[in-house]
């Protein structure tokens, strides 16, 4: 139930993001989610693409440094407290969230969140045991 996140090394210079999104656009790759963590000198761009393998191959060809990271996507009710309830469960089960971010758009009153944890299997089991169903890649438009 994990999905592939592509993590790309970013130098802090103007135009780098435009370059990355540009080459992906040329290949007709759609981005489902995007997140950036940065220091003053460099950063890590994390993205979920509809065609992860193709997106990774395209970026590698362009000389970018990247890695594929397994992450878990979860639907949460798009209402106050929706996310808090899920995080509460993870806290009780001692699951440390390294980072998380949201997926673009809302479907049927649900928002989608992407979680990065050390042990994805445990996360999935804990979510299921607490009645939260992780969502598959297909449901996010990932082929």
């Amino acid at each position: 139930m994990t999905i592939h996140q592509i993590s790309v090394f970013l130098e802090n210079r103007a135009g780098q993001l435009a370059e990355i999104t540009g080459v992906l656009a040329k290949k007709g790759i759609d981005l489902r989610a995007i997140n950036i963590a940065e220091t003053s000198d460099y950063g890590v761009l994390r993205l979920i693409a509809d065609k992860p393998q193709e997106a990774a191959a395209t970026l590698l060809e362009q000389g970018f440094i990247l890695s594929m990271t397994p992450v878990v996507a979860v639907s949460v009710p798009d209402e106050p407290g929706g996310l808090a309830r899920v995080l509460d469960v993870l806290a009780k089960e001692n699951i440390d969230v390294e980072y998380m971010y949201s997926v673009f758009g809302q479907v049927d009153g649900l928002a989608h969140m992407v979680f990065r944890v050390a042990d994805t299997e445990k996360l999935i089991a804990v979510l299921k045991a607490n009645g939260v169903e992780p969502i598959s890649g297909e449901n996010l438009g990932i082929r």
Partner: protein
Amino acid sequence: MERYYQPEIECASREQILAWQNERLVKQVQHVWDNVPYYRKKMEEKGLTPADIKGVEDLHKLPFLSKDDLREAYPYGLLGMPLKDCVRIQSTSGTTGRRVVAFYTQHDIDLWEDCCARAIVAAGGTNEDVCHVSYGYGLFTGGPGLNGGSHKVGCLTLPMSSGNTDRQLQFMVDLGSTILCCTPSYAAYLAESIHERGLRDQIKLKAGIFGAEAWSEEMRRDIEAKLGIKAYDIYGLTETSGPGVSFECSEQTGMHINEDHFIAEIIDPDTGEVLPEGSKGELVFTSITKEAFPLLRYRTRDICILTREKCSCGRTFVKMSKPMGRSDDMLIVKGVNVFPSQIETVLLEQGYPANYQIIVDRVNNSDTLEVMVEMTPENFSDSLAKITNMEKSLVAALKAMLGIYAKVRLVAPKTITRSEGKAVRVIDKRKI
């Protein structure tokens, strides 16, 4: 009115200086032959015995000694005296590979301090002065050398060492420091701090003795104007004793080499041929009075010019220009010797490719060192914390190797400029 620490030596006739040099060189060659097997072997390889060296005119026959020799002979291979007669070591900054350890007998220290005392008196120092020594103390020669010279002159000596600007300024104001000894970049930094804090009227400085790194005439004028002092250059290297090998007089047109202790030559760095006076080339020193660590024809790698033109100060010692560059790839950053190979070693140890660029600059009169390193797939992670931790350990390893802080900048692959397929390893943006 020019003053001298040892006028009978500093203003001796050229004939007298040459006579001292002849006598001491012959004695030194014999001393080295008798006591330093490493150098004796080098002489034998050239078919030389001490009898071949009858005076300064025969100096060119002797083999050169390079930093590689010093490294090969590390630690005791060039020691000229039994350990029981040695009382001190000083060392260059490199922590591996390029480290040089120099030894001193009490007599060596005594002569070294005389040299520093000459520099202090040339800068106007007397026993009425308060001499504020902000060179680093410890293995670095700057602090111990000027400290000893200051004692000899009879100045009240403030062994401040470097760093802790607040304390530096407080002592300077409270104790009325009159002579400041430190690196030029630290002098510029202190001048800036004094200016910012409006302390200019509360300081009593009249002179500064600044060395251990290259500085421009422009920087000199800037420091002089900001502190209201006269700034004097001083030169030296650990291998030959430390600061005080040469020093500036009131004329500020070059540094007088203490020729009663050192014979200077200028050579073509490629052929090793001795060049005539006034030529630009590599400076070579022979120490003719050192007991514990006698170096014959030591190649400094500093490029400069010697002149024997009469100096208005009255000193008769030959003058050397400020070093105009290096004949190897050594950088001097914040007074510390940095070799690109040291940085390369750290990068490889830490799992980075040997693809890097060193950028040296001078910001607000202080040297900065930046190492650009290309990110690799192996080192990359989706976790920013992992990358920053790696960066931190690289910074710490560089600090341990170089002794100074180097900023690390992680860049994308193929960012580092290559010319004709060969990467440009060092970019020195300092205008010196």
